[in-house]
């Protein structure tokens, strides 16, 4: 019996203690009419060997294409110790650290994580993580509405250069609390949000302005100007950032004169594999003055009855299990295992390593754009890449090109045609430190071949 250790003797002894004739008797409180689920839709059990075979076949079906896709999930080298440590049973199979004295490992790790995220983002306090970058943005908007004392507004300024899926998720989560988003357009030539388009909102009341850096197109926003505009207008600044890029880019705590108010983003690039989209983790940092408005768990350092230092969950009175309907959020969990991986990852890289990874990403993206734009019909949509992504325009529909590249084992990027029709036949490409010269050459050659075939096919049909 998989995972059930009971022998017939055990069962007999236990039933005797209970004075029950059979295990079925233990379910005698359930109305008879309700019982009799037959689970016809669940296949018979498989041994571990059989399951391993099945999953290996399924994995082989999916293969391992060469990946130039980003758009919110990024391929990075994950050092071997990261998951060797995160997979240890003491981390993998531990619960939430509610019994602090029996969970000092997890608690200290989270404290170290919080410290690293504060350092990376230039802010004063971090929580223990949220589900992912998209839901972290939703929570940040809810938090800004709660925290902005200078404003009763439930409106948030949302540029179109913010990841559109993040905006969708923020809508799904925040709509039920009457939070509305005012969409701000981007400059067509520069591919970023000009502070001039915000001046139109100067007289109105908004709780927050969201700025993503680098933005969804891979371009750099003028974060200092945007942050100062927000503060001049009693608007809180929410920064959505990429953690690897923070090795090179100005920390949000240093944006403008006062710095961002709430910072969030996707932590996946820090040691968490792509894995078809999850589990990832969302990070959130803020100023100390807003700490009681911040959702999620927080670990604090304290002392025990002998004066020995130790760690514990704190500020729990904000959370659902105490405040119930007045909670800051209904969030119950953090993404513990993903945070464990990220903390080990950041410890291995350190500031120096993170900078090397980020620099490699920036250079590889430049090299990729150069190589692809040498293919006839391919042009950059904006200036050079701000970090590791860029938008290119093609002289023909993007979808068939991507399909042809996929058939050749290359994931060429994200088709932007539907979401940003004004950009024409646009493609979002990404290159991280994992891409070599040979990889980039392979993509360029494949693209040239696909473009060439298309041209020949068109001529043939003419």
């Amino acid at each position: 019996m998989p995972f059930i250790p009971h022998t017939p003797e055990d069962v007999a002894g236990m039933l005797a203690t209970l004075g029950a004739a059979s295990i079925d008797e233990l379910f005698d409180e359930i109305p008879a009419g309700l019982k009799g689920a037959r689970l016809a839709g669940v296949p018979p059990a498989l041994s571990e060997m059989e399951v391993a075979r099945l999953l290996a076949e399924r994995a082989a079906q999916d293969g391992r294409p060469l990946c130039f896709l980003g758009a919110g999930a990024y391929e990075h080298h994950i050092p071997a110790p990261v998951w060797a440590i995160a997979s240890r049973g003491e981390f993998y199979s531990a619960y939430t650290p509610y019994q602090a004295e029996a969970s000092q490992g997890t608690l200290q790790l989270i404290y170290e994580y919080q410290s690293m995220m504060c350092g990376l983002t230039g802010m004063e306090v971090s929580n223990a993580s949220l589900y992912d970058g998209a839901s972290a943005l939703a929570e940040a908007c809810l938090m800004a509405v709660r925290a902005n004392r200078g404003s009763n507004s439930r409106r948030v300024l949302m540029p179109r250069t913010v990841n559109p899926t993040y905006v969708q998720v923020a809508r799904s989560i925040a709509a039920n609390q009457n939070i509305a988003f005012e969409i701000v357009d981007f400059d067509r030539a520069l591919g970023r949000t000009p502070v001039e388009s915000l001046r139109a909102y100067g007289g109105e009341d908004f709780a927050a302005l969201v700025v993503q850096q680098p933005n969804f197109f891979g371009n750099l926003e003028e974060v200092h100007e945007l942050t100062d505009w927000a503060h001049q207008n009693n608007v809180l600044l929410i920064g959505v950032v990429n953690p690897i890029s923070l090795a090179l880019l100005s920390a949000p705590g240093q944006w403008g004169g006062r710095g961002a108010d709430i910072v969030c983003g996707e932590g996946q690039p820090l040691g968490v594999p792509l894995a078809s989209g999850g589990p990832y983790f969302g990070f959130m940092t803020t100023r100390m003055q807003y700490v009681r408005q911040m959702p999620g768990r927080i670990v604090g350092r304290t002392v025990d009855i002998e004066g020995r230092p130790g760690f514990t969950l704190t500020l729990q009175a904000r959370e659902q299990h105490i405040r119930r309907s007045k909670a800051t959020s209904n969030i119950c969990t953090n993404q513990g295992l993903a945070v464990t991986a990220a903390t080990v990852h950041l410890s291995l890289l350190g500031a120096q390593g993170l900078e090397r990874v980020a620099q490699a990403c920036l250079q590889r993206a430049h090299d990729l754009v150069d190589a692809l734009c040498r293919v006839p019909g391919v042009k950059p949509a904006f200036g050079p890449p701000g970090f590791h992504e860029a938008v290119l325009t093609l002289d023909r529909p993007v979808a068939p090109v991507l399909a042809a590249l996929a058939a050749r084992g290359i994931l060429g990027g994200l088709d932007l045609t539907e979401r940003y029709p004004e950009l024409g036949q646009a493609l979002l490409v990404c290159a991280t430190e994992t891409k070599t010269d040979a990889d980039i050459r392979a993509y360029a050659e494949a693209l040239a071949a696909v473009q060439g075939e298309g041209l020949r096919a068109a001529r043939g049909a003419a």
Partner: protein
Amino acid sequence: MSKIPDDLQFTRSHEWVRRLPDGALEIGITDHAQGELGDLVFVEVPHSGRGVKAGEACAVVESVKAASDVYAPVSGTVIAGNAELAAKPELLNQDPYGSGWLMRIEPAAGVAPAVLMSAAEYSAYVAETAH
């Protein structure tokens, strides 16, 4: 047994009210309430000038195990919040009817006076709701 001073009035949500000589009301939470909450770690009081409606939550008291709203017993304007509680929330545990006061409210003119319990009524109320 929690202390319940005779000269104060009380609400069903465990606030006490003291009528000040100038007509303003001084408000805090009772000894029973602070005992239930445990050691307070954080108190948030309203800023002066804020308008409040009767029954509106206008302060928060937070311990390790619970966070509770404190409600305005009347409509009016907050004329003072106890600023000492920010650094020393424990004052509220130690001296809930004295230095642990939370706020003072000037009742709005023409509004019906709050319906409050006497010390005896509050004492009975606490006994009946205790588990």
